Structures are given as C-alpha cells and as structure tokens.
C-alpha cells in the first residue's frame, strides 16, 4: 500500500495510508492541535511531564519540548509564557531489576534532549521502597500500594508547577471509561478525561493529556520511527488484569468498526462537563497527617505508610 506521495505506507487507518514522513507529520499535528485547542499550556510558566522511561511519556516529553520551541517562533502555536520551563518528573518506586533500566534510559534521553529531570523515590519520601512494602503488607496488592504512593508524590511535586502533562493515550482512556462503566463505578468517571483534577482546587495539580487522541499503536510507531530506542520492559508486579480484558474487548470491537476508540473518547468528553458538575460542589477533604487531598480523614498513602510501620 502506498502513501499519496508514492512512498510505501507504514501506517493505515480507515481509508488513509501514510509513509514514514507523512505519518510523523500527521502524528505531531494531532498532538500539537490537542495542546492548542484545549489551551493546555496557555499562560503556563512551568510545565512538567510525568515521565517513566516508557514509550508514551518519552514521546510526550519530546513533543512538548518541540511544541514549546515552535511556539516561541510561531505566533499561531502560542501561548505558553515566553520563557516557559519544561522539566521531567519521574518516580522511583524501588522495583528491583525493573525501574533502574527505564530510569537509566530516561536520564540519557533527557540529557540528550537537554531536559531537566527530577526523580522522586518512594524510599526517600515514605521511608520504604515498593519491594519492601509488598514483602510486608499482605492486605494491599502491589498496584494499590504503587498507585496510592505515586498519586500522592506526583500531586505533591506537580502542584509546584503550573501544569503537569501525562502520557495517557487513547487506549488507556477508553479502557478506563469501559472498565468503570462495566463495574458501575460511575463515581470514578469524572476523574477521567483530557484534563483532570475533578475539582479545581489549590490542593490538586493541574493535569493534561496531550496524547488523549493518539491510539497506543500510533504512539509506539512514532517512537519506533523516531528511533528513540525505548527499552521493552515489563513490571514484575503486572498481573493479568481487568484492564487486559477491557483492552481485548475494545480492540476486537475496533477491528470491526475502525474509529470506535475515537468515538468512545469523544462521546465521553461531550458528557463529561455534566458528570463533573455533579461532583464539583463537594470540596475535597485534606489528609490529617500529610495534608494531601483525601477521601477520608487519612489518605491512602498515609494509611499504607502507617500499616508499614505497624508491620515492623
């Protein structure tokens, strides 16, 4: 199959086929127009990218940098503040034999692309690594511990910046929507979407998702064609999950109905404002121990920290 320019296609979606150069151009335009149309970086002076050394956040880091550079010279892209700074934020959970590989890659990538990188570790923030917590806390699954501590840290450090971009792609988002619908977790739905922080509140860092409209395969293809060399890794704690089933289901539907993922996500965005209005009035509580936003009097991260101390 050929691109309209006559070169061999590397990408096909519905009726269009694109060669390497035209795919790269198509992908970058898509991300840039998402950033521009949703005014992600308007008036921002400090922009963070939550980075892990995986393909999504690596692609995002590269493109946010490119966007900022182009926006300085091209009027039409605007409008972060003239000297907006960009930094990568990474979390070191302390997972033996896994995280070092991705962080080493991220360090090299940031150095090569002249992006400043801050790494926050569970060990220094909470006093224990994920491996240590998993070994001692039988009541919590690894992903529960990791998710709670990670959210707390990203929020804590992200709040110091005007905005934090995360690498969630179209597949991640569709899986989130479908899983919450299937489980009837309607209360979680308002937390999804292109711009998060259910409640606009000083306690929450402002988060945006520039890859929201990019299917996972497109993100991988871009990373591959650009030769980023992102290492293939699998978290040793990853287990077959509900998310895997949601992925299989959505992929099987969209192989018969191309464009289904885009439809799920844009349909969801259209009714998200109404969903959010229903929870907007509730002000978040603050954790009595660390001061972070919390559903109860103690946040999940502090609850886990206490359980860890008690298990000694």
């Amino acid at each position, binding site marked *: *199959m050929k691109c309209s320019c006559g070169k061999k296609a*590397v990408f096909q979606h519905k009726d269009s*086929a694109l060669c390497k150069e035209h795919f790269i151009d198509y992908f970058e335009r898509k991300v840039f127009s998402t950033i521009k149309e949703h005014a992600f970086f308007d008036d921002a002076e400090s922009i963070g990218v939550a980075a892990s050394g995986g393909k999504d956040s690596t692609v995002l880091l590269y493109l946010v940098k490119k966007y900022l550079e182009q926006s300085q010279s091209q009027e039409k892209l605007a409008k972060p503040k003239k000297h907006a700074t960009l930094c990568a934020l990474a979390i070191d959970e302390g997972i033996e034999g896994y995280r070092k590989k991705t962080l080493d890659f991220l360090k090299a990538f940031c150095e090569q692309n002249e992006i400043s990188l801050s790494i926050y570790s569970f060990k220094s923030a909470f006093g224990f690594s994920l491996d240590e917590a998993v070994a001692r806390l039988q009541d919590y699954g690894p992903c529960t511990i990791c998710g709670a501590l990670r959210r707390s840290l990203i929020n804590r450090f992200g709040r110091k910046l005007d905005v934090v971009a995360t690498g969630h792609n179209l597949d991640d988002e569709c899986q989130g929507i479908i899983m919450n619908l299937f489980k009837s977790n309607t209360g979680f739905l308002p937390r999804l979407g292109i711009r998060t922080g259910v409640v606009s509140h000083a306690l929450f860092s402002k988060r945006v998702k520039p890859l929201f409209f990019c299917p996972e*395969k497109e*993100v*991988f293809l871009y990373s591959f064609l650009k030769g980023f060399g992102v290492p*293939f890794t699998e978290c040793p704690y990853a287990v077959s999950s509900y998310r895997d089933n949601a992925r*299989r289901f959505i992929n099987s539907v*969209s192989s018969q109905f191309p464009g289904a993922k885009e439809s799920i996500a844009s349909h969801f965005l259209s009714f998200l404002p109404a969903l959010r209005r229903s929870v907007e009035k509730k002000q978040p509580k603050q954790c009595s121990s660390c001061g972070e936003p919390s559903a109860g009097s103690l946040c999940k991260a502090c609850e886990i920290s206490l359980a860890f101390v008690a298990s000694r």
Partner: protein
Amino acid sequence: MRVFIEKKGFEEELQFSGSVSGLLGLLGLDSSEVLVVRGSEVLLDSDEIVQEDKIRIFSVISGG
C-alpha cells in the same frame, strides 16, 4: 521464516508465507497490539511476507 517476538524474548522458526495479518492470526496476536517489522521496514497487515523473511514483532503495550 524466522520470527522474533519481543514479548516472548525468543526467535521461532515457522513455515509461513502470506499476508502479515495471516501470520498474526497464526500466532494469535492482535494487530492493534503489535508492530510487525522486516529489517527496518514497518509492515502493514496487508503486506505480503515470504518464507525467507526475518520478521520482528514488537508489543506496543507499555509494560504489558
């Protein structure tokens, strides 16, 4: 045909010639979850591959 599947971390020898989607069907892989490459050339589902080809199949899913 020699096929390297990244997720499994090893190379297999297969008797196959036909389309990329045929190969993925044979291996039980979903096209939206993998990228199929011959040398440095990215292949589409409709591309034809032959017995002499060396194919690499990458998982596009992060951490999975």
